[in-house]
């Protein structure tokens, strides 16, 4: 088997409410930044993976159209989909493609233009990300599923609505200093406690508007290369040390104990830690899939940063702040950046790459050596964990 696999270029568009251009143009924004970062020519890319969730697109089979627009033909391309974790699935597939020796440089492009649909239509499609035969007929949607996890978890472990609000407050601190985030205002506990405030408005109890991330348009691009290429072209390659993935029952009836968080995250993390030969204590900075505040608390535990039920202690003690023992989502996370489904995982990977290179600007944590990405598709339907090092 070949040598190591590195990330040699990263890019991301600003995440915005409504991108003033087409899907391919949005994809180009992240691509250009990643190519300029990698200092290579598009012609050197040997294959591309276009990652997104198709239900938002009017274009049938978007991969070919996007690859053409990016100047990546006649090299092969294909579409990769695991909803919200599509682009980390793409990164893991690209890792395997390079590791196999079949390709030396692969581009993973995540993109989503959600604004082509109304918010209600988006919610309808998200509901259909669940089991359409047995659960969607009851009127399900993403916040409701995470709310079921939140309720069971809070009942067992004594997590409070104030703890959940603290996750959003932390997120807003970093969202304000991330110029690519869609939500850049400060959030305070008062916003959650004032019943007149939009943040306090219930969505699916116990989750409120303030507990939910916003839809967004955005793109992300990660360029991976073989060890040989990376050493030749890249000053600061970031190495992929470990990857792990898992899948779960779509129906809630097929799920294990809701109070234990997401099984996919736990399994993916175990695999990635084993492959990287590290433990959770070795992680210096992490990006977790905080589509809802409860999701970040569950991630702390599923990744082994906290014992079961003790995730709340990390946020209460500010251990996941930039200066804490395990900084999490110091780019604002999904809660502040926004969540353009197919682009989200690539954005998380980009943040960790910039952190490991020492190029994260005001968000930089002190001298991290190992970083981790936790990206979830659907309500814990798919889970990817990627561990990276300098």
């Amino acid at each position, binding site marked *: 088997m070949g040598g190591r696999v590195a990330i040699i270029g990263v890019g991301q568009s600003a995440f915005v409410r409504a991108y003033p251009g087409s899907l391919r143009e949005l994809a180009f924004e992240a691509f250009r930044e990643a190519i300029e970062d990698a200092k290579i020519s598009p012609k050197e890319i040997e294959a591309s993976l276009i990652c997104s969730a198709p239900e938002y697109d009017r274009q049938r089979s978007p991969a070919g159209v996007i690859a053409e627009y990016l100047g990546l033909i006649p090299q092969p391309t294909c579409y990769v989909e695991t909803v919200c974790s599509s682009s980390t699935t793409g990164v893991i597939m690209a890792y395997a493609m390079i590791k196999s020796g079949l390709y030396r440089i692969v581009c993973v492009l995540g993109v989503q233009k959600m604004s082509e649909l109304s918010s209600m239509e988006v919610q*309808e499609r998200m*509901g259909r990300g669940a089991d359409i035969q047995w659960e969607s*007929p*009851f*009127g399900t949607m993403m916040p409701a599923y995470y709310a*079921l996890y939140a*309720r069971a978890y809070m009942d067992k472990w004594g997590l409070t609505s104030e703890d959940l609000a603290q996750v959003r407050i932390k997120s807003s601190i970093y969202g304000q200093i991330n110029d690519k985030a869609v939500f850049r205002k400060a959030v305070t506990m008062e916003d959650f406690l004032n019943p007149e405030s939009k943040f306090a408005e219930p969505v*699916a109890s116990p989750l409120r508007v303030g507990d939910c991330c916003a839809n967004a348009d955005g793109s992300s691009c990660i360029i991976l290369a073989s060890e040989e290429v990376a050493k030749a072209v890249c000053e600061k390659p970031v190495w992929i040390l470990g990857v792990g993935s898992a899948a779960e029952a779509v129906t*809630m009836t097929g799920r294990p104990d809701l109070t234990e968080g997401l099984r996919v995250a736990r399994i993916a993390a175990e695999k990635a830690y084993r492959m990287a030969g590290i433990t959770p204590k070795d992680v210096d900075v992490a990006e977790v899939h905080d589509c809802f505040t409860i999701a970040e608390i569950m991630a702390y535990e599923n990744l082994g940063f906290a014992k079961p039920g003790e995730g709340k202690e990390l946020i209460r003690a500010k251990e996941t702040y930039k200066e804490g023992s395990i900084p999490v989502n110091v780019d604002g996370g999904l809660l502040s950046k926004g969540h353009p489904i197919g682009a989200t995982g690539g954005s998380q990977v980009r943040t960790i790459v910039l952190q490991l290179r020492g190029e994260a600007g005001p968000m930089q944590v002190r001298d991290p050596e190992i970083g981790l990405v936790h990206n979830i598709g659907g309500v814990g339907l798919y889970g990817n964990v990627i561990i990276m090092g300098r």
Partner: protein
Amino acid sequence: MKEKKEQDTRFEKFGVVSFTAITKVNDFIDYLEKGKLAGTRCKKCGKLYFPPRADCCECLSSEMEWFEVEGKGKLLSFTRLTYAPVGFEKVLPYTLGLLDFGQYKVFGWISKDIPEEELKVGMEMVPEVIRLEGDRLLYHFVKAS
């Protein structure tokens, strides 16, 4: 002229909005019509499935029989929705819940007659089939007596 083959689309009646018309477990709807909630049991290995399945993924058999959901389930979690997907606005607010019956779990609505304050994780509930506008069928959970 060739006669058009009639399709069994009973499942279209399931829920506020059904996204599935044709399934091999359409008899589920007949059970609902009789006020009963049913799952399937694999005749070969005995595994119980709720929601029902036509095929067993444990032993790959397609020899299944129906069983009725009976007894009380324990409420594992619930959520009251004040936002809804397209097509469900008119039934807002509604509450979703998950009941544990030991060998299987059942996902569904919780009766609108129960105020949210009276719901508690761990309480015992039973499913009850309900008829919605337009003769549509669904089930919800009520307190176990």
